[in-house]
């Protein structure tokens, strides 16, 4: 290596490569169909669970809103969640019924929603031994976002588990905890949860450092 971060610092560590915005054309690289381009044989996209997956099939949707209240139409989102038994299935394999990882993007059309087809995750253990309430980790990239934003999505019909979740309750302001809780809707007999991500200002979503 001959970049300057190849030399250990005083703490004998290399410096992390610096982040830059994914830019307005992130779709070319990570969401080819959204760019209007041909797709390859296997793409990483938003169908995390096929119909035969164990667990409750759900759709998760939302918008991304900026500090002016306008829709962010070029946001790209990655999801990471446990299966119905609370286990992460790290091995990404499109022949499996379920993958813990998914990708989605807001669209350039009127509603500009991102969406994931998945199952409701099971509870995962916190290092303290307590169970965390069911949740989906979301990572957001966009033009104007210099380093990705990390958040979690929780479910409004898990009020009891949410009230005890050791991560959710670490958020000091109870009102801000609500920014992570998706609302259940039933549309044509299908279960859908909605969470709008607000980047700035009133109702600003909680973002984590970890």
């Amino acid at each position, binding site marked *: 290596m*001959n*970049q*300057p*971060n*190849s030399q*250990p610092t005083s703490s004998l*560590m*290399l*410096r*992390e*490569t*610096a*982040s*830059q*915005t994914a*830019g*307005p*054309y*992130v779709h*070319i*690289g*990570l969401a080819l169909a959204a*760019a*209007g*381009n041909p797709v*390859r*044989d*296997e793409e*990483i996209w938003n169908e995390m669970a096929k119909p035969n997956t164990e667990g409750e099939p759900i759709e998760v949707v939302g918008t991304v809103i*900026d*500090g002016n209240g306008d829709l*962010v139409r*070029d946001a790209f989102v990655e999801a*990471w969640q*446990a299966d119905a038994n609370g286990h*992460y299935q*790290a091995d*990404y394999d*499109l022949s499996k019924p379920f993958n813990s990882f998914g990708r989605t993007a807001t669209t*350039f059309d009127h509603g500009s929603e991102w969406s994931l087809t998945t199952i409701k995750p099971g509870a995962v253990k*916190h*290092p303290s031994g307590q169970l*965390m309430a069911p*949740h989906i*980790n979301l*990572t957001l990239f*966009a033009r*104007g*976002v*210099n380093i*990705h934003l990390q958040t979690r999505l929780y479910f409004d019909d898990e009020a009891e588990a949410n009230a005890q979740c050791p*991560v959710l309750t*670490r958020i000091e302001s109870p009102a801000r905890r609500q920014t992570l809780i998706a609302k259940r809707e039933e549309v044509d007999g299908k279960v859908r949860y909605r969470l709008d991500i607000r980047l*700035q200002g009133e109702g*600003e979503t*909680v*973002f*984590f*450092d*970890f």
Partner: protein
Amino acid sequence: MTHDNKRFVARDRNWHPPAYAPGYKTSVARSPQQALVSMQQPTASELTGPDFSHLRMGPHDNDLLLNFRQDPSHAGLPQGERIIMFGRVVDQFGKPIPHTLVEMWQANAGGRYRHKNDKYLAPLDPNFGGVGRCLTDEHGMYRFRTIKPGPYPWPNDMNSWRPAHIHVSVTGPSISTRLITQMYFEGDPLIPLCPIVHTLKDPLAVETMVGRLDMAHSKPMDYLAYRFDVVVRGELQTFFENQ
């Protein structure tokens, strides 16, 4: 499976660009104003991440000279300077990260992206798509064959130009190591003029994003080589019980 003993070196938020960097105007309305909530004890949800070893790749997924040929009988190659972009993905302790997904995308030689929203004057290249992906090998090495992208103007200041760059996305062993950056080209006079580069305060941090001309790995009469190593967060084990 327990992840209780695993953690990653904390991300240095002063090294990375801040969310709010007004010189890059789009960041003004897209930057959170509240402080990030620090998860003092990351959980399995943060310490694990996807493994793409079984993602089926096409034969030319890392070869942008060939992977957009619409008609295989037509031997057209993209316009532009032929280059190899290669390097190693390591963690902060120098440990190579094998079998991790590296993805990249870029403009063509004229500075135009193949994207339905890019309306720049420079023409599309019928033989160039601008996307690549590969897994690092057992030593953490990755490699792409492509053309050097052109600089292009963008609406920020009255006359802002992006230096030539390739967007690079790396997964690493966990969602905690996830990173998207841009590789710039050594010696490009547009680097110090770029408002997006200026979101970084430390000039050394900028240098971590500059790919170096590597004549030893270039091929006579064929292509130049640019070396770009990527450092992701280091993984630590906690050795002692916390009591």
